[in-house]
């Protein structure tokens, strides 16, 4: 079926995943409230299962969209592989987060229905961010996602750190939203449209590099830079990631970041494609700074959660390289990397939740002493996640980094490539540090026989999720071929056919 948005009913088809997910969210919300009204404790598994079912349905719908095509390449709703791939990322991120969150949510007595509903609604927002060509919708989707994220951050009302994180996130997020919005306004002023495809046409068709456009690009870069936690707009990230409840952190690290990147890519690579040379230095510096600063600061962290936060920032830096490279290879790399990153970061936070007894305790490195020998499976899984985060061969993280490097190399960004690998070396240190605490240090004051760690909570869904995630990471590290091709094809729609690499030379 070919969709033509001249007919409004076609919008419904085009937005089927979003609609399905929204309805599911409301169902979860209602179910939660209903349970609450009955005075029964909210059952995370049940509501979570419902949410997962909703995600599954949305996924089905998303898959169904592959059978459709659109008229033109400038409709308000995009129906390209890029969007659909992005949708997979968001759905996956949400689903994984929900699976690993069951026990945490219950033990922390969070309000389950609202929690999952918010996750789903945030996912809807993300899907809009990735699925639209209109800046208005991108902005609204981003706000939907952000506001949900603020709430998810501050969700644990018993924990003042959660509240503090929420406040910081909210204030700074709103602050950056101001810049983003102002940027959109100026972009609108410079091109006369809010549709990214039309913007590109406008820029190439006469608007050119006006003063407003330059300012707009800067402000948009800042706005998105904040959301993807690019240095120096990353300051909120460690605090927020540390303070937020772990499932929220996992979700933010995986999905929220992914969505921001998706929107970032679409806006800059489509709308501002014609003025690449003028925004390229910004992205170059953002990428370089992010990689360097985040990795360096991560070195000093003794709190694993906070370390993972910095690590997340650092990964953002690697992904920014892809935007700076601005070619199909790099974009495909970004997609692939985000996919792998979703797995490994949720996996890592899952382990974190298990070790911290599904709470916000025992997050220090010392708490991991001897963990590997006490809980070998946990140790091995975490080691896999860490190696993947570090980008070690045999893991998906490596293939992702290779993909990004391919993109950077194709764009001849050799300096960035070198910075990428050097900062990767730096990152080895802090990832390895966790592994050395786990495997090479004796446990503090414990015989350390397996099974004695009574505070380890790893319920079945968590175990399944962790093992599956690790398995997928390894699979992606060893047989990535199909997914790589898939990512490449998905990225193709952002680029005019001629710029593809396959078949042509670099």
């Amino acid at each position: 079926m070919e969709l033509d948005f001249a007919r409004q009913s076609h919008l419904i088809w085009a937005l089927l995943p979003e609609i399905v997910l929204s309805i599911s969210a409301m169902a979860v919300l209602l179910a939660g409230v209903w349970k609450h009204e009955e005075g029964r404790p909210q059952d995370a598994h049940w509501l979570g299962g419902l949410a997962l079912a909703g995600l599954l349905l949305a996924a089905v719908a998303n898959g169904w969209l592959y059978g459709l095509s659109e008229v033109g390449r400038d409709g308000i709703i995009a129906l390209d592989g890029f969007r659909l791939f992005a949708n997979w990322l968001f759905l996956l991120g949400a689903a994984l987060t929900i699976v690993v969150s069951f026990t945490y949510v219950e033990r922390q007595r969070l309000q389950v229905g609202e929690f999952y509903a918010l996750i789903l609604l945030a996912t809807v927002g993300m899907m809009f961010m990735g699925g639209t060509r209109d800046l208005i919708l991108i902005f609204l989707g981003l706000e939907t996602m952000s506001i949900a994220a603020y709430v998810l951050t501050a969700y644990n009302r018993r924990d003042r750190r959660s509240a503090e994180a929420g406040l910081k996130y909210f204030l700074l997020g709103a602050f950056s939203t101001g810049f983003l919005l102002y940027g959109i306004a100026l972009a609108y002023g410079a091109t006369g449209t809010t549709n990214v495809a039309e913007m590109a046409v406008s820029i190439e068709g006469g608007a050119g590099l006006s003063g407003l456009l330059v300012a707009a690009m800067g402000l948009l870069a800042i706005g998105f830079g904040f959301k993807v936690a690019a240095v120096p707009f990353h300051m909120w990230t460690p605090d927020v990631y540390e303070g937020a409840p772990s499932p929220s952190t996992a979700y933010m690290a995986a999905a929220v970041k992914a969505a921001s990147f998706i929107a970032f890519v679409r806006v800059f690579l489509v709308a501002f494609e014609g003025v690449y040379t003028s925004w390229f230095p910004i992205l170059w510096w953002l990428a370089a700074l992010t990689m360097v600063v985040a990795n360096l600061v991560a070195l000093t962290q003794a709190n694993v959660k906070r370390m993972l936060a910095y690590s997340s920032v650092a990964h953002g830096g690697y992904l920014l390289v892809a935007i700076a490279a601005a070619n199909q290879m790099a974009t495909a790399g970004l997609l692939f990397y985000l996919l792998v990153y979703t797995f490994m970061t949720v996996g890592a936070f899952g382990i974190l939740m298990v070790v911290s007894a599904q709470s916000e305790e025992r997050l220090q490195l010392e708490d991991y002493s001897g963990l590997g020998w006490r809980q070998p499976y946990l140790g091995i899984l975490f080691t896999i996640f860490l190696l993947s985060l570090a980008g070690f061969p045999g893991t998906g993280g490596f293939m992702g980094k290779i993909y990004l490097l391919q993109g950077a190399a194709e764009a001849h960004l050799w300096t960035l490539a070198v910075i990428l690998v050097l900062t990767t070396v730096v990152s080895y240190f802090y990832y390895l540090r966790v592994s050395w605490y786990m495997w090479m240090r004796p446990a503090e004051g414990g015989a350390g026989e397996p099974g004695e760690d009574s505070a380890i909570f790893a319920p079945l869904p968590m175990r399944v999720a962790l093992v599956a995630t690790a398995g997928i990471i390894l699979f992606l590290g060893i047989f990535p071929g199909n997914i790589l091709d898939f990512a490449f094809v998905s990225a193709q729609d952002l680029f005019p056919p001629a710029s593809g690499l396959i078949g042509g030379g670099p």
Partner: protein
Amino acid sequence: MLTEALVVSALLFLIGTFGVLVRRNAIIMFLCIELQLNAANLSFVALSRHLGIDGQVFVFFVMTVAAAEAAVGLAIIISIFRHYQTVNVDNFNLLKW
């Protein structure tokens, strides 16, 4: 008049920015952010004069967003006030380094 309006909106925006930088009261900081949004709105409206009604539609949505942000933001502020009995952001530094 467009340029002037843009300048005014820029001024408002920057004043808002300045306010975020120098105020410690979370609510006032948020207020300053609202000021920024408002500045953007002004730009939209001014530009819509030349570029058509889309700008105004945008402003409509921004107001919605502002409202939503206000609701959640104030809720968060209330929530943190319960922990700290203050909204002075200087006190909120459990999370740092």
